[in-house]
């Protein structure tokens, strides 16, 4: 799982809201890319972002390598099944064509770039900062009568639940291993069977914790009200403006390319 990496880089100093806005611009740019020049621009942007975030190429490489099977499957599916026209090689339903190669490589590169940018966001932003940023960005939904305070509370509690439930799931998994469950060996069916006894206890543990928390909140007088918005300090630094302008420029350039 992507973890926050403490540091002192420009990205670490930037506001969570700014990083999230930049991430959405870059996300749009990645999805719009379909030319070699566009991919080169993304490559330059990703390289500069990795250097500025101080994450390290090895760390980034590990993140990408974890998904090598997924990338291979996506590439091969596109390569063999995309188009039978002008095929380099054909056999039964399999056709290797230039269009399939181009499509497969394009999809894999887009996913790699998205992975790189989301890793940079997560590695330089704490979960609490990220939730606060989401709360600020969700504020306009209040116009439609949606309780952004409740929404932010749910997201904040969810983020805080993740490490607790992750630990709980790990403990249950170890308990099942002690009882003879085989998670990492055997046939696919056996491994699936061994996962099943983990799922129900994990759900019960999660709902029990949620029940306790809800009880504690109600006991302390928590009610759904409109005035549960925390005060937001809109102090914008020059680097925040620069980052938004740059990411917006990357997105517009992608549209023009």
């Amino acid at each position, binding site marked *: *799982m*992507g973890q926050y990496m403490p540091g002192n880089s420009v990205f670490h100093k930037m506001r969570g809201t700014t990083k999230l806005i930049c991430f959405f611009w870059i996300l749009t740019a*990645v*999805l719009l890319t379909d030319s070699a020049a566009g991919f080169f621009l993304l490559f330059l942007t990703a390289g500069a972002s990795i250097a500025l975030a101080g994450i390290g190429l090895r760390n980034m490489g590990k*993140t990408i390598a974890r*998904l090598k*099977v*997924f990338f291979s*499957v996506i590439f091969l599916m596109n390569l063999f099944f995309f188009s039978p026209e002008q095929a380099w090689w054909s056999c039964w339903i399999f056709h290797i064509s230039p269009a399939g190669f181009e499509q497969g490589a394009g*999809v894999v590169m*887009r*996913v790699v770039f*998205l*992975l790189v940018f*989301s*890793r940079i*966001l*997560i590695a330089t932003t704490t*979960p609490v900062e*990220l939730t606060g940023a989401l709360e600020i960005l969700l504020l306009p939904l209040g116009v439609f009568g949606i309780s952004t305070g*409740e929404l932010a*509370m*749910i*997201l*904040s*509690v*969810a*983020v805080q*639940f*993740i490490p*607790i*439930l*992750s630990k709980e*799931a790990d403990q249950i*998994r170890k308990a099942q291993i002690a009882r003879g469950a085989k*998670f*990492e060996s055997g046939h*696919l069916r056996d*491994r*699936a069977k061994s*996962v*099943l006894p983990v*799922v*129900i206890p*994990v*759900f*019960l543990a*999660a*709902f*029990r*914790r*949620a*029940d306790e*928390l*809800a009880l504690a*909140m*109600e006991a302390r007088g*928590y*009610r*759904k009200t409109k005035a549960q918005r925390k005060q937001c300090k809109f102090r914008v630094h020059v680097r925040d403006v620069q980052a938004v302008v740059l990411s917006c420029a990357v997105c517009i350039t992608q549209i023009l390319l």
Partner: protein
Amino acid sequence: MKHQLSEVKCAVLTAASIALCIVLPMAFHAIPNAGNIFLPMHIPVLICGLVCGWRYGLLCGIAGPVLSAVLTGMPPAAVLPGMAAETAVFGVAAGFMMKTVHTKRLFPDLYISLITAILLGKVISGAAKALIFSAGQYSMAAWVSASFITAWPGLLLQLALIPAVVAALEKSKLIPARYPKKSGRFQ
């Protein structure tokens, strides 16, 4: 007597379900390609819809995949919009059906709601992918393959596991009983 969850409890249970959307796929990581085969992220969304209602199901359906993509990089952003649309429909349909269907027995209610939600989710996400997210690149064969052929173990798992989990939650009194047993003394 009113047998309903309070809004605060619904909100916190939804938060737990969103967290499970991230934790559960990690538990399945030992199995290669488990995400596409066992669909672990769908389970908390469907349970949230069934237990907390369509509004919270919708929130869990959207926030679960989005938070997971942001925090873990999975599902990849290219797949995210289609998946979020699918899980959002799961949450809404499960909650709405659970509110509408009353057969006076828990398991028929759960199975009717669950099967309708799964089918609706698959159809609407397929339509969304074909018309919006992958317009021109998504075929009927790809939809059948991804939704039913590759994912049949996941569908079986959902049908076996979700009613069992909801029943276990009722039994352990973590959620109120849908059809509370009447005490003989006061009848």
